[in-house]
């Protein structure tokens, strides 16, 4: 009787998680075993299933996503960025990517392809001012722009891995500040603590990499997208 009572209580608790698909195999097996001998729990399962089916349909009017995005985009345009890290940090253990095999450039190309079909605003092509990762600070816009002005344009090979990118940018003391363009061009700038490093030296590092197909300096004052 106690066993039946325990299994009844356990089944009652697990039913919603079976219905929404998040219960473990063992939980499912044990519950179904109990259901064979418990009318109450079979009814409970049927009820929860109908409840789930009814609730899993979205409301007819979820709101205007395109309009919402335009508002958010305008907000982003109007506010200096903070909190973003340079690509030199993207391969820290346990961070962001599901596995080391995830390729940043492939993902970027994926997003680029999706964007081609976009019918929403073209605000994404606006220049984005970037700040290195860190805490919030008060910076003038002029200072921010100067610190992130791109000095090099580069095209990476398609088979470049995240780790290789990490090593290369670290070696060349560079950070990504924009890109890729439709032609796959990325804009790089000196890393936060390497502003004094000569562009020529950074270019040598880039051109020495087998994963770099193209690397050229950007003349000062050039407009960068």
């Amino acid at each position: 009787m106690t066993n039946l009572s325990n299994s009844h209580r356990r089944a009652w608790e697990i039913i919603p998680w079976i219905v929404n698909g998040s219960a473990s195999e063992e939980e499912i097996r044990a519950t179904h075993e109990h259901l064979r001998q418990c009318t109450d729990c079979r009814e409970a399962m049927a009820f929860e299933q109908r409840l789930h089916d009814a609730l899993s349909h979205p409301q007819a009017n979820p709101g205007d996503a395109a309009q919402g995005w335009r508002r958010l985009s305008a907000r982003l345009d109007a506010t200096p960025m903070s909190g973003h890290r340079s690509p030199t940090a993207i391969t820290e253990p346990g961070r962001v990517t599901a596995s080391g095999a995830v390729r940043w450039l492939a993902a970027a190309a994926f997003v680029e392809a999706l964007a081609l079909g976009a019918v929403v605003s073209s605000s994404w092509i606006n220049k984005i001012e970037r700040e290195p990762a860190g805490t919030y600070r008060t910076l003038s816009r002029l200072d921010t722009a100067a610190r992130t002005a791109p000095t090099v344009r580069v095209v990476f090979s398609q088979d470049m891995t995240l780790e290789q990118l990490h090593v290369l940018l670290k070696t060349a003391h560079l950070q990504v500040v924009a890109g890729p363009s439709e032609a796959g061009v990325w804009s790089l700038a000196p890393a936060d603590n390497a502003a004094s490093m000569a562009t020529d030296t950074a270019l040598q590092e880039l051109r020495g990499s087998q994963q770099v197909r193209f690397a050229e300096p950007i003349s000062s004052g050039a407009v960068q997208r």
Partner: protein
Amino acid sequence: MFGPATAQVPASTRDDGRDRELLGLIALGERRALEQLYFNYHGRLGQFLSRLTGRRDAIEEAINDTFWIVWQKAAQFRGDSRASTWIMGIAWRCGLKALRRSGPLPPEHGEATIDAASATDTTLASEELREWLDTGLRTLPFEQRVTMEMAYFLGHSCEEIAAIMSCPVNTVKARMFQARIKLRNLLPTLGGTPSGAAKS
């Protein structure tokens, strides 16, 4: 690819992989990745936040606040949960703020009474059923209602809901338990059982 998304299925493993990649790009400042994520989540966030407040402007504000934080904090996503859990946790907190700003509950909120006559109509259209259910859900305490929505609309596990709502797993279980008891007593025909059949 873009357009109003009415996401209605729980995030699958495949979706999680996609979301993680997008978060990785957002952490680097890639605006288009944020845009893609925004459209992927707008429908389900709108649905979820509608459980917190009935004001459309507050919902939109909470959605945009959520993605504002995602934009700022993507680099802090450590990958130890599904991306959707991380995003919904932010949405939950933004929703609470919106709730505080916009006032308590939906304009139509109040002591709901279930129409027994309509409840016994076996030909209820799904839309009517949903409205009926909404009325039932509004009778639940706030946390129970949101827990139910997270489990049945968003498809989150018990542990994920605990993470999103920053509470113990046992609290989620208790909220779900109480919500189910109340709904079974309020909506008996949904289970094909007479009123009062639910056991506590």
